[in-house]
């Protein structure tokens, strides 16, 4: 995945300014920054949820090799977003339909692609939920009745249901109990290993980044201030802001 010179403006505020990054197959790229750094905006742009004010975006996909995804029409973008990208939001209410069943949330992804056999839908939902380490005896519970960690697992199952090559995660464990966080992160690590999915994970939590990310990008006020291998950025930060960020960790 490659993004060049990304720009996004809301009125006079430049939320994202000149961001370029790439992610290699099977790696986990972390994006760190404080609130307002633009990291979540970058993720939304990568999910083709919002129009961009500048920049190009390419994914190494058979049908879209070399094409700027921002320049595609609405239908092609929806196609890419459905089949090739999965996203997990910080707030499960954004990513899930709370009043449907958890298995239904996952099955919807297949329904969108035209799957019309009930048994296939059940099986696919089971597979995805199991891969997200969600207890199958609760697969027909509504997400609204589940704990935060379980809700994130349902989101994850939904995101990987169509076996996308790119998974976007926006603070997936923020707000969860610490012990639950560790479990969810472990599931992500397992998924990366077993399915070779490329993940881009936004977090303000350096512990989470250290645990999962192979490389990390530090953002501030819409710009990238530093990037490198996770251990290097966290242990030998070069930029003044990064040094502050790293040393401020309690």
């Amino acid at each position: 995945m490659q993004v060049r010179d990304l720009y996004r403006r809301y009125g006079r505020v430049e939320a994202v300014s000149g961001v370029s990054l790439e992610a290699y197959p099977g790696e986990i790229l972390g994006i760190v920054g404080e609130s307002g750094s633009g990291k979540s905006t970058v993720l939304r742009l990568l999910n083709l949820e919002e129009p961009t004010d500048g920049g190009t975006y390419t994914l190494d996909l058979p049908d879209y090799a070399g094409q700027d995804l921002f320049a595609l029409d609405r239908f092609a973008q929806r196609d890419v977003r459905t089949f090739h990208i999965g996203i997990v939001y910080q707030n499960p209410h954004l990513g899930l339909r709370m009043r449907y069943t958890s298995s239904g949330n996952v099955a919807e992804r297949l329904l969108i692609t035209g799957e019309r056999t009930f048994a296939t839908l059940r099986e696919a939902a089971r597979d995805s939920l199991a891969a997200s380490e969600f207890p199958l005896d609760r697969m027909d519970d509504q997400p609204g009745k589940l704990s935060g960690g379980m809700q994130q697992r349902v989101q994850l199952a939904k995101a990987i249901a169509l076996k996308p090559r790119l998974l976007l995660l926006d603070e997936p464990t923020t707000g969860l109990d610490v012990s639950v966080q560790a479990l969810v992160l472990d599931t992500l690590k397992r998924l990366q290993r077993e399915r070779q999915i490329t993940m881009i994970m936004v977090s303000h939590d350096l512990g989470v980044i250290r645990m999962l990310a192979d490389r990390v990008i530090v953002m501030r006020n819409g710009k990238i201030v530093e990037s490198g291998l996770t251990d290097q950025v966290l242990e030998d930060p070069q930029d003044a802001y990064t040094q502050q960020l790293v040393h401020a960790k309690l």
Partner: protein
Amino acid sequence: MPLLEVSHLSKHFTIHHLDREIGVFEDLTFTLDEGQFMLVVGPNGAGKSTLLRCLYRTYLPTGGQAIYHARQGAIDLVTAADIDISYLRTAEIGFVTQFLRPRPRVSALELVAEPLTDAGEAWAAASARAGEMLTLFNLKPDLWQAYPTTFSGGEQQKVNLARALIHPRRLLLLDEPTASLDVPTRTALVARLAELKAQGVAMIGIFHHAEDVNALVDAHIPIVAASLELTGDMADVVE
């Protein structure tokens, strides 16, 4: 056959908010051949660990070169792209520290087998090999399925070593691997290192009990504190 050619390597830290530069070492030059074992020596706090971390790219060297002859060609570790370093770390260069970073709910056996499964090996073979390594380092079999997050320091270290040494590497960087180990395990470690050395693995190590590895050492790398201004104690500015 030279594996690593370091020339004029130097490292200093720039602490922006204090507006300070802390020198660690400078103008370091040495060559490491395949199958060679070099011991890093110097006073405490002089920067021995820093050297290893610079070679592993956990720290960014500030000057000089470190040409590493990878299977696919020569590459300067100082200026290599992150993705290439990432690759070298999984395939060719290993780092053994005192500290294990266990993940919750991952058993000792899984952690040790991980380098093999990451490289694509099947679980059956990988876990068998992991078992051999854990046996070598004297971790009781009834702990293999347990979670290292609950282990003592010494037990964690055994898992650490097994994991670090299971996958064949070409270059091993060892940062005080024998700290917190009992004597039998230290012996097992040295034996394993000797084995690997005989297979052509090159090693650069810092050892608290240098006498353990006397028989393996081919050369020394002396680290002397940098001549750049070193104000204040290292420990109090750098975490």
